[in-house]
């Protein structure tokens, strides 16, 4: 398992390649990449600044992967999440899940994103032509997470 919270950008292709080549017995890799949109809720986005809770954030991400591994038969998972000030089209987050069964990898990757969005301590503030504003949590993210609580 790899969890990284960093200001630097990451190399999605290299991370995916490393995950699959480290696991020669598996056939399936599912990856999620989040990017900064150029427009959010109708406003141009100039910058997006991500704040986190050092220590807790890393623990929360590792706990989410642990939970995914208990629930699905997957081989390994990685989360990289950026913090600091980003520009539109910058990468924010990468999740990679590798395993033998693609349906389990898809489910685990989506599960990780849904829990990351609702339980990992990150907060976004964006600057727009109208000024700076904290991004509000969305009910749709909460609803996405609660689907998994069966």
């Amino acid at each position: 398992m790899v969890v990284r919270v960093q200001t630097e950008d990451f190399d999605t292709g290299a991370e995916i390649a490393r995950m699959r080549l480290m696991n020669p017995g598996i056939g399936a890799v599912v990856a999620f990449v989040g990017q900064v949109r150029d427009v959010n809720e109708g406003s141009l986005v100039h910058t997006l600044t991500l704040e986190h809770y050092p220590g807790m954030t890393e623990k929360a991400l590792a706990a989410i992967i642990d939970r995914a591994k208990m629930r699905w038969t997957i081989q390994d998972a990685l989360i990289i999440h950026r913090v600091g000030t980003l520009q539109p089209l910058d990468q924010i987050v990468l999740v990679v899940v590798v395993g033998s069964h693609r349906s389990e990898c898809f489910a685990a990757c989506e599960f990780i994103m849904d829990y990351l969005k609702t339980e990992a301590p990150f907060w976004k503030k964006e600057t727009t032509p109208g000024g700076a504003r904290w991004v509000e949590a969305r009910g749709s993210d909460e609803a996405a997470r609660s689907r998994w609580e069966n």
Partner: protein
Amino acid sequence: MNQPLRILYFARLREALGTASEEIALPDGVGDVDGLMAWLAARGGVWQAEFSGSRPIRAAVNQALVQGTARIQGGDEVAFFPPVTGG
């Protein structure tokens, strides 16, 4: 065991309070997160505005998300923050 309580504030809450962290002695009669929030709200002003329950606040004790009924004691790290928006 008179260790202080360390309290952290993040994001919009940190800005509204003008404070990122503080250390206090565990106040008399405060035994859980709800109790600490009521005690902070009693400071009045922005503290009252943020901790009176009108705005959503999440809490963590020792870096784990908790409910308001979670116990706290001296030496704990307690964090308050708005609902998270990563990803």
